[in-house]
């Protein structure tokens, strides 16, 4: 199994609160990703990074922000949570080589009330 970790796994917070979802990987992968997925639905790419100090927005417009100060760490922050942010957030990484297998964390389930 892959060495990519997400915390918290489950979180219920109030509207307007600031939240940071943590993601760390110990594989030394340069590429990291955040996907948003509602139950039973497709994976939406919201942010990605190709290395330290590199971050890009994905296809799905998101009010979240990310940072990549260290290779192993790719946190996602919501400055002011809203009920529409309720979803599962999946962090992933890949080595970007020929194989480029994507390894996912177990996900963070966020509920905004």
């Amino acid at each position: 199994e892959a060495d990519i970790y997400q915390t918290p796994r489950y979180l219920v917070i109030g509207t307007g609160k600031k939240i940071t979802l943590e993601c760390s990987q110990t594989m030394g992968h340069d590429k990291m990703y955040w996907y948003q997925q509602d139950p039973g639905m497709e994976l939406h790419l919201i942010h990605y990074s190709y290395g330290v100090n590199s971050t890009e927005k994905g296809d799905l417009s998101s009010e979240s922000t990310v940072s990549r100060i260290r290779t192993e760490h790719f946190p996602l922050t919501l400055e002011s949570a809203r009920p529409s942010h309720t979803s599962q957030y999946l962090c992933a990484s890949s080595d970007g080589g020929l194989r480029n297998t994507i390894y996912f964390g177990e996900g963070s389930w966020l509920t905004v009330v």
Partner: protein
Amino acid sequence: GQQVMQIPQYQHVQEGEDFTTYCNSSTTLSNIQWYKQRPGGHPVFLIQLVKSGEVKKQKRLTFQFGEAKKNSSLHITATQTTDVGTYFCFGSGGGADGLTFGKGTHLIIQP
């Protein structure tokens, strides 16, 4: 980014029946990967296909990459309840941005 199109969106089968899901791209891909996501879980890598016409097998699962490297299929023989989940394809190269998954095929098995 451009993504591969995946069909069907849902597939109901009786346990023991076969199942097939298809991915199609309008442009030639460098490679295609398949992932499985169990209900409540996260996607897990199954296999990667790189060569034109490539066929790979994993027990009851057979993966194919088309000759033109624009389409791929995943076939499960004699489905079991453990096969339940969503199967995603992921294309890289050509028009695929190597970032976007197909919409997935949900496999529902009726005992």
